[in-house]
């Protein structure tokens, strides 16, 4: 039943008399409540972003009294910097494989652990645990595990007669190894988001599909997957953004080596800014990365028809 209520004047609110001068709008104390957040965002996020944009237009070395304005020279130099392109290639390769891998694996695990039993609850915790662990801690632990001399992985492989390689020192294996660790680390996040979304799918849809003769795969394909679209979009966008910001894991595991084969854009930015003190150049790298993330996220949202999905 639909009912319509007549508007009722609230306490203290009086109708304006015709012809009477309008009262000045009263100051809303709500602004004061949001003021601390606005100030914090302005001081610690907005201003540094604007400042880095300004710095990227200068030859800005930490500590120097004056900073020469160079226009877009830092961006031009970046365009011709082979090490930047190498770092971008590494970052994109990591992001693509880890994003796709963690979403697909997360989907598979979520589908498998959908029913809540003590066993699935235990496994969910096991899959989710790496996600809440610090990236640096994860990196250091895996570095020890993969150590060719004292690591458990190579020792176990040796026990079963497999001559294991030097995972993190091989120019061909270092990046794939970091990628596998990245997927393992993040699959729990995708799993938990997709699992929560799966459990929101109404049971009657599956009953109807079953009555229509749909098999298990068809129920997954035509009922579950469409219902998961917003969650899939969310996990893939988050995975892409975090992948493009790759730093901690490679910093702890390889420091970008061997011979820059795992050096990410953010690692290169860190070295330029905080090792070589070239903040202008580092800011230019940050802005290029920011634009890349912006464009890729926008494309993802567009391709996934965000409005429909929402």
């Amino acid at each position: 039943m639909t009912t319509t209520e007549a508007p009722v004047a609230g306490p203290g609110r009086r109708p304006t008399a015709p012809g009477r001068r309008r009262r000045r709008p009263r100051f809303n104390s709500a602004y004061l409540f949001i003021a601390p957040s606005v100030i914090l965002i302005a001081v610690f996020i907005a201003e540094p972003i604007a400042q880095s944009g300004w710095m990227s237009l200068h030859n800005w070395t930490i500590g120097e009294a004056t900073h020469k304005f160079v226009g877009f020279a830092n961006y031009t130099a970046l365009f011709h910097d082979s090490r930047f392109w190498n770092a971008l290639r590494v970052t994109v390769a990591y992001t693509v494989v880890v994003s796709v891998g963690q979403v697909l694996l997360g989907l598979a695990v979520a589908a498998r652990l959908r029913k809540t039993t003590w066993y699935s609850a235990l496994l969910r915790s096991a899959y989710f645990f790496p996600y809440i662990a610090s990236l640096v801690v994860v990196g250091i632990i895996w570095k020890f595990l993969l150590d060719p001399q004292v690591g458990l992985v190579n020792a176990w492989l040796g026990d079963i007669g497999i001559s294991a390689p030097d995972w993190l020192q091989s120019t061909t294996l270092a990046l794939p190894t970091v990628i596998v660790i990245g997927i393992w680390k993040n699959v729990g996040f995708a799993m938990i988001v997709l699992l929560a979304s799966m459990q929101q799918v109404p049971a009657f849809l599956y009953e109807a599909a079953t009555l229509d003769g749909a098999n298990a795969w068809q129920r997954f394909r035509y009922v579950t997957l469409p219902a998961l679209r917003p969650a899939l979009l969310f996990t893939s966008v988050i995975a892409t953004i975090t992948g493009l910001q790759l730093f901690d894991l490679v910093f702890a595991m390889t420091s970008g080596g061997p011979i820059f084969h795992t050096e990410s854009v953010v690692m290169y930015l860190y070295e330029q800014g905080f090792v070589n003190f070239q903040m202008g150049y580092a800011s230019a790298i940050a802005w290029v990365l920011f634009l890349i993330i912006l464009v890729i996220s926008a494309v993802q949202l567009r391709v996934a028809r965000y409005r429909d999905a929402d």
Partner: protein
Amino acid sequence: MPFPYRIAQRRFVAATATTVAAALLAAGCSSSPSGGSASSGVVHLSMLTGFTGPDEPSYQALIKEFNATHPDIQVTMTVEPWATVAQKLPASWATGQGPDLATPSSDPGSIFNYIKTNSVLDLSSAAGTGASKIDTAAFPSSVTSAFTVDGKLYAVPANLATLVLYYNKDMFAKAGISGPPTTEADFIADAKKLTLTSGGKTSQYGLSLADNQTIQMWPILQWMSGGDIIGKNNCAVINDQASVAALTQWSQLVMQNHVSPVGQTGADADTLFSSRKAAMEINGPWAADGYKSAGINLGIAEVPVGSAGPVTLGSTVPLMIEKSTPHPAQAEEFLAWYTGKTAQEKFSQVSGFPPSRTDITSAVSSNPVVAMFAKALPYARLYLAGQPNATQIDTDVYVPLIQKITRGANVQASADSAATQINQLTGCKSS
């Protein structure tokens, strides 16, 4: 709800929110300079260092003694990881908000960044002879030279270390080798003999070499037989005949004879030696206690001598004064005392490091380990000394070069490419 109560509530809410916002602003805008201060005639100096390792108590003991003997000057040393020091110090010194004294990095080449930003005090007027002066003539000439730019002294050595050859006596005895190698030829022969394989896999390495995140060992291997990285005219010599021959020889020993693992960090190399998986390692005095506590039957010897004569790598941490410190005279007095004979003798005894002075080696002869490091002082060479872009040359050129040639890249071509990069960084004009 009664009307007056609503008014009071709104006022309370508005006042609270305003106070919170004001407090946040105040917190964001306030600052607390960490520089020196003077109260009741006593000058307090702050000192920031990166000595987070087991040698920290040695520095603290030295400062404690200075404070006890100088009641009018009190120094407080703060220790933070080197990476944190490197991030905080440039901006804090450039804005006059930093500590009075600091060791900016374990890399002596880092002083150029601070000289360029006009952040450090010229110590030239404090140099001289006598207890109240910094006696630069007593430092090894390579150290004084590294800390002197355009004729001005900008730093003193916070410590001075030389690299020696650590070896596992048990492994040597088991291999039938009577003593440590003294020549490059013996060094190579022993490294090969001490490398053992089991089931097609190396079970013991003759030598533990690191090439990244470490104090460099590879330059010693080049210097031994006359090679080098940069020549006297600031131009690269890493691709000359002697350098390429040395790099070829040692990269082949690593790749073909597997005398050392590839691509180790300094920490990896130390772990390999202390876990008894390597028979020799070139390292500094800071490593000795760790190896002994790991139960290694430890031997320490001078680095073997090659065709170019005795040579090893020296390492020194620069200690500098902030240019805008309000107490330059007291800070200079501290440096004069710190680098003086009494303090250096004491420091050497408690830390196991050789003294930063060459005129008191006899005073440390009672400790054979310290004496070994001190003995190498006269022929120790600093890595990339005097190069303003030393850090970049190391991380962008030298480390990648070693990593390439130990993975099979052509040595001459890689060295040629490295030389081109080095010349760009040093500003070498000659072709």
